[in-house]
């Protein structure tokens, strides 16, 4: 088809630029997830210990999650300004819930008997965390990171509206052109691919971390 030829043509002329945006897009998403992990994993552990807190912290994260992405980006732009940093911050916010919830569930699901044995062996609370709870929850936490990464890749696409760059730039240019289908696809395909590949890689990591190796690789990401 002509469109396919056009797309290939576009890539051969502008490969460097496309790669630059691809990398930038991924970097913003990765930063968002990374910062969220630093905050959400400890918090998840905390609320697993102090159940009373769990209710409202998870509700708060839930509320953040429900805010429509474009609205969030636009409002943050008014406060923080344009550019990639604003997008990374909003991606951070969107990654909180999946990681938080999964850490909480993962830690909670650790068999109480194992915790008892750990205590009986004389482990400190921190050692129990490091040696028993975290390894056993790693797989579930990984699932949370995976969901977060897919979400952030999606949201980063609309970062283009506040000057952050990324593959959304290409898609936007395509919509402004006459007969820009090829360009829209040239931007949309790598974005979709990035999300799918990220999902797959994270799924593999998720399985690697499962100490029981009983779970099949889930190709369906879970945000329940």
């Amino acid at each position: 088809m002509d469109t396919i030829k056009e797309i290939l043509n576009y890539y051969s002329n502008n490969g460097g630029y496309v790669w630059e945006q691809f990398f930038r897009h991924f970097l913003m998403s990765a930063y968002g997830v990374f910062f969220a992990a630093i905050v959400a994993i400890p918090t998840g552990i905390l609320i697993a210990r102090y159940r009373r807190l769990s209710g409202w912290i998870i509700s708060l994260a839930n509320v953040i999650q429900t805010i429509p992405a474009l609205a969030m980006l636009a409002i943050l732009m008014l406060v923080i300004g344009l550019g990639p940093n604003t997008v990374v911050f909003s991606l951070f916010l969107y990654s909180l819930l999946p990681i938080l919830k999964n850490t909480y569930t993962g830690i909670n699901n650790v068999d109480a008997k194992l915790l008892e044995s750990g205590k009986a062996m004389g482990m400190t609370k921190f050692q129990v965390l490091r040696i028993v709870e975290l390894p056993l929850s790693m797989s579930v936490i990984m699932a949370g990171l995976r969901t977060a990464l897919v979400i952030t890749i999606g949201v980063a696409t609309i970062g283009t509206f506040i000057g952050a760059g990324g593959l959304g730039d290409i898609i936007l240019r395509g919509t402004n052109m006459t007969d820009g289908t090829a360009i829209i696809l040239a931007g949309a395909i790598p974005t979709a691919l990035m999300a799918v590949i990220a999902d797959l890689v994270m799924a593999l990591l998720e399985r690697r971390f499962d100490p029981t190796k009983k779970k099949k690789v889930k190709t369906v990401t879970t945000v329940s």
Partner: protein
Amino acid sequence: MQDIILFFQNNWGEFLVKVWEHLYISLIAGMLGILVAVPLGIVLTRFKRGASFVMGVLSVIQTFPSFAILAFFIPLLGVGKVPAIVALFLYSVLPILRNTYTGVRAVDPNLLEAGKGMGMTVLERIWHVELPLAIPVIMAGIRLSIVYLIGWATLAAFIGAGGLGDYIFSGLNNYQPELILVGAIPVTIIALLVDLLLGKVEIGVTPKAIRKIKEA
């Protein structure tokens, strides 16, 4: 703040139209999603192998960034509400489908046997046994789907579908912060309200006995 109040005073009619447009595209897409996903989910419980394939394909589609899919439909279906609804519909299917599938599968086979024993046909079993028991889970999926759609419908304004996203885009394009807020805040409130409402519906359709187990 003054500007926002002034804007509402002058344009409340237009504002209401946009709210309606927004809800319209989200709900129509959601309804279509339910119409397709629930029966499909029930069918898939009969074909387990087909199930993982179909859900695999759908979850791949789910990973595509919504902006990419919306833009993709411009050359195919043009601009306006129709392409927006089609794109949003694609997103609504998976959560509902997955939950229908899991919900129906989780129905105790003994109950199905009992139904068969009572002389129920397959359709009667679905209608009287499986569906009612699976409804809480299905409802959870519908809730997830619809709240998700309301969020992404803001983007649909970009392809001429209307809705509150129009204000956000105009605000971004003209640097009018009050417009951004007139779009962003109501749409967030609507999303939260719908989430709350559907949450209550979810609890409402959960049979009392199961509700007690959940709370424990």
